[in-house]
């Protein structure tokens, strides 16, 4: 169990020190996940910082981040373990060439072949069989892309934190890994899996939090520009877009504007850099129809308040 997380404020401070500003709900969920040893299931729009959270926890705890990117058709050979077939075949050929194959019986030969040294450990097994050091962070990313069969398998692994390799035996975690699952909700993940986990729906940040996040991540952007960018993004989220910009886009945008040497946004600048925030042609058109001037105005009002 991690040492420096005895209260929610420790978690908030630890995450902030590593560049992640979480709101109270997320902080509580992380704190409970760490202290109860339960996986944390994060859902939310793309770009609200789900994956980033796992990376931050790993940095903060000073442990390894093991990432399993899910995709359709992922199976045990890619997620848990596989055998190193070419080395197995080489071993067999060597045994044959030295005449060992004729003197050893098949069972012994089989025993040599399915030895741990020929085992290729994939993400799940590595997270469980991590040795004696601090528990790693296991990020199971976009679980909604995997299929039902894989989900069922995952349920088993996350219940007992153990993996059985029929030819060798059972691997059990000395200390369970810190598990973060993310989903973009393209389909419903099975309830049984969610029940193993703590659940948090990640929202877009409030204006003030977003300003602080941009400050933290893009320190070179000026106070006024930071507030204006956050204000413009806030205005964009108010228009009904296919894909409202997430925090990731806000950070990208602020970085891009900083790189261009922009100190204050105006209509031309927004027009030129809209592609860093909106990735659908329809959304860009909608913003132009809605009027970029309105967004600039909102951004200016937001930029002025305390600036």
């Amino acid at each position, binding site marked *: 169990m991690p040492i420096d997380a005895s209260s929610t404020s420790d978690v908030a401070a630890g995450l902030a020190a590593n560049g992640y500003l979480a709101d109270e709900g997320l902080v*509580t969920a992380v704190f*409970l996940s760490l202290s109860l040893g339960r996986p944390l299931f994060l859902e939310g729009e793309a770009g609200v910082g789900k994956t980033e959270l796992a990376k931050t926890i790993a940095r903060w705890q000073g442990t390894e981040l093991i990432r399993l990117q899910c995709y359709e058709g992922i199976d045990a050979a890619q997620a848990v373990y596989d055998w190193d*077939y070419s080395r197995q075949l080489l071993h067999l*050929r060597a045994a044959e060439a030295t005449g060992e194959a004729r003197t050893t019986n098949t069972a012994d030969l089989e025993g040599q072949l399915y030895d741990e040294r020929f085992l290729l450990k994939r993400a799940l097994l590595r997270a469980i069989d991590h040795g004696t050091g601090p528990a790693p962070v296991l990020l199971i990313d976009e679980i*909604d892309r995997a299929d039902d069969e894989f989900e069922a398998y995952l349920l088993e692994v996350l219940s007992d934190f153990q993996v059985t390799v029929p030819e060798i035996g059972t691997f059990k975690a000395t200390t369970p890994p810190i598990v973060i699952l993310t989903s973009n909700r393209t389909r419903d993940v099975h309830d049984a899996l969610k029940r193993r986990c*703590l659940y948090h729906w990640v929202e877009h940040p409030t204006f003030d939090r977003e300003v602080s996040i941009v400050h933290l991540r893009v320190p070179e952007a000026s106070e006024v520009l930071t507030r204006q960018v956050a204000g413009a993004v806030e205005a964009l989220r108010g228009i009904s877009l296919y894909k409202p910009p997430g925090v990731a886009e806000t950070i990208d945008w602020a970085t891009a504007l900083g790189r261009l040497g922009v100190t204050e946004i105006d209509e031309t600048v927004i027009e030129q850099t809209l592609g860093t925030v909106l990735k659908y042609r329809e959304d860009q058109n909608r913003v132009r129809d809605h009027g970029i001037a309105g967004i600039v105005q909102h951004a200016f009002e937001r930029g002025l308040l305390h600036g």
Partner: protein
Amino acid sequence: MSFTLESDAERLAVAFSRVLRSLEIPAPLDSVLTFMNALSLVGITERSSVYWAARATLVRRPEDIDSFDRAFAVFWEHKESPYAPDEEVQHITLALDSDEEDGAADGNAEASDEPSITLRFSGVETLSNKDFADYTDDEMKQAQRFMESLRLAGAPRPSLRHTPTRSRGRRPDMRATVRASLAAGGEPMRRKWTTPSVKPRRIIFLLDVSGSMEPYARALVRFVHAGVAGRQKVEAFTLGTRLTRVTRELSSKDPDRALRATGEQVRDWSGGTRLGETLRLFNDQWGVRGMARGAIVVILSDGWDRGDPEVLAEQMQRLHRVSFRTVWVNPLKVTPGYAPLARGMAAALPYVDEFVEGHSLDALVHLTKVINHA
């Protein structure tokens, strides 16, 4: 865990989970136990700590957050009733009732432009091509049994998963080859192969439940139920003035229970139509995000839309871009002299791959073929 509730935290956890269950948010025992443990960590004095601990342990779907918030406010502030005061919820039973009862007068006003079919006696016609609008309750029951016998299986597509094959496949199966070579003293004599397996495509039903569809929606919801209950990869939504996902409600094998649950869930039954808007919601929240990708999307609607046809056309185009095939089932198509005059229908047609009837059992048999066809 002791069997008597000792601490305040435990009492609080149990009491709150009761409130949740009364609002039909599932609060299974293991989650309540986790909630108790969570409370012992964060304490029970701060409202926000208790709130977030409860949300992390007891809520599992974003749809439930609103009811959860209400329940929590009531519970924490000891208000009177945990029920939402805002909108009067009308529970409409979908089970066999009321041919004539119609909720929305305005929905009908639109529909009345269409020649209404008034064949009341079915002596000549067999049930198989009888119009759903003229069904008696008994006939509806018979039809339901027939619909359950229709096997929906989305057209197959190659999966990324491989399965072993006896003949020469696409990829060598190293695991089995090494196994087999043990018997041959280490010589990989018999090579084994795998080949991509096939999976059925996901089927998504979007059922229009507006007033003008009322006579047909009653029957079509049964068809959708047969599909959802029969297989795993079927999703169902209703479209009206709002979008409602009814996959969970319809997944019960018992048709009466499934239909009752659906009736309770769908609040805009026989209301107006905003096809374009609700389709947009579907695309944003589910379809384009992944659910409709490579899927067979079946829209069951008469195409009467009160909204802007431009919106409907744009949303149909989005949907068509990601789906494998878009099927539009229009029960009015069979009406003599029917041309897709409804503005919505006309706007949507360019993005429809198959435009079929849906007024009778025969039509549904044909629809099943269209869906299953590769």
